[in-house]
């Protein structure tokens, strides 16, 4: 076990990579970066990728409104129907609703996801967005970038870069989903998604 890693007595099968404070700091920085890059947020829309990305996008929306005292529009995207492995998966992914209550066209859309890994989810999300309109720009914000890209995709905003082995399991736990806020590396592969 390396020096950086911390084990948590409450979660014995995990190495905690980010705790709740670190997550909040990273998200606050991302919110500032989004505002800086786009010179405010009047033409910005946040779109969270289900499920984890949606909650992170909600938090970013709140942070942005605290910093800038303006509201940024928020949508939710389900990418199941756009997956490239739809026909290959053993389990049927559960379909959820896509809910984007604003016109994408001419907005700068910030896609929000929890973990950036192969890039295939982001490819699917971009296709999904394009079917809904013609955004002026698509940017990508992720809490964790764990490498191992299979497509030429790069995030504009990253909470933390974490070097990982391909078979490692990185999970983002969120209060909104009934967990204590943290990012962890699972030691047993028992919880593989």
């Amino acid at each position: 076990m390396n020096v950086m890693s911390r084990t948590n007595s409450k979660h014995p099968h995990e190495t905690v990579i980010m705790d709740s404070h670190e997550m909040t700091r990273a998200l606050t920085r991302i919110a500032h970066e989004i505002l800086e890059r786009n010179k405010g947020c009047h033409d910005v829309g946040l779109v969270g990728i289900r499920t984890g990305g949606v909650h992170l996008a909600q938090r970013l929306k709140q942070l942005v409104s605290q910093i800038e005292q303006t509201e940024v529009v928020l949508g939710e995207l389900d990418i199941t129907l756009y997956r490239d492995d739809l026909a290959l998966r053993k389990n049927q992914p559960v379909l959820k609703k896509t809910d984007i209550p604003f016109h994408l066209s001419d907005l700068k859309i910030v896609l929000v996801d929890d973990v950036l890994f192969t890039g295939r989810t982001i490819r699917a999300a971009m296709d999904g967005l394009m079917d809904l309109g013609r955004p002026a720009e698509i940017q990508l914000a992720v809490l964790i970038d764990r490498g191992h890209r299979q497509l030429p995709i790069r995030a504009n905003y990253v909470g933390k870069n974490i070097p990982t082995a391909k078979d490692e399991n990185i999970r983002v736990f969120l209060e909104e989903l009934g967990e204590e806020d943290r990012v962890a590396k699972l030691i047993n592969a028992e919880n593989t998604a």
Partner: protein
Amino acid sequence: MSFKRKDLLGLAPLSQEEMALILDSAEPFKEVSGREIKKVPALRGRTVVNLFFEPSTRTRTSFELAAKRLSADVVNFSPSSSSVVKGETLLDTARNIEFMQADILVLRHSSAGAAEILAKNSRMSVINAGDGWHEHPTQALSDLLTIKEKKGQVRDLHVAIVGDVAHSRVARSNIHALTKMGANVRVVGPPTMMPLFLHRLGVEVYHDFDKAIAGVDVVIMLRLQLERQGRSLFPSIREYARLYGLTSERVQRAAKDVLVMHPGPVNRGVEIAHDVVDSGSAVILDQVANGVAVRMGLMYLLSQRN
């Protein structure tokens, strides 16, 4: 849970959970149909064949739109312009379609059990789009989705199904669907249009519409199949309309927020009065809209089977 079946032949063999899964899978597709670009790539490269041996506009169009909005390729076979008129059997027709590598076959046929025979003899997923007097499962699922949307849930609702129950596959599928989801179902019609032993399906049988409609939450009107009138199930259409037609006076007897449903095509002025079709209680067009979503959800689930 996941959907394990290869085919959808009827609702009688389905569990409550399986029906709920189809409804849950249908709901996200309503958003897709509301988009400017009404298409998602979920069934890209798959082939859906519509094989309809009976005339149908609504159901065939609904299946065709559902498949196209999932990006599948769709072929429509109609018997008058195919080798069926040359004497080919149903099974041979289906085998030929199968060996053209179709993935989903949608069948409407006048014989009960036709879809089941093809399902047993084919690798394709078969969807029953109506077989004789047997079942029309996707219609009943569209009705369930409509009720669920408007009422929040199906359990404990009082539902009346009115008309020629004996000759109605819609009625049979709806009875299975509604009773399994926990609704209280009563069927209404003249004795000549009621099959024997209907009570075994867990429904109450009424012959007096005015009594039966009292306090119900949903009324499903069946189409009077005018083409069957030669069989003298009833003295005259006028008498049928007077005794079993849904008028606004009868609607008053039902619950205040009653839903009026009809699988179409509507015979205005026969089983249902003009002003009722156009009233706020009628959700007939919602049923049509939900039909596309249900068929998309179903084809998505069937295509996910490995």
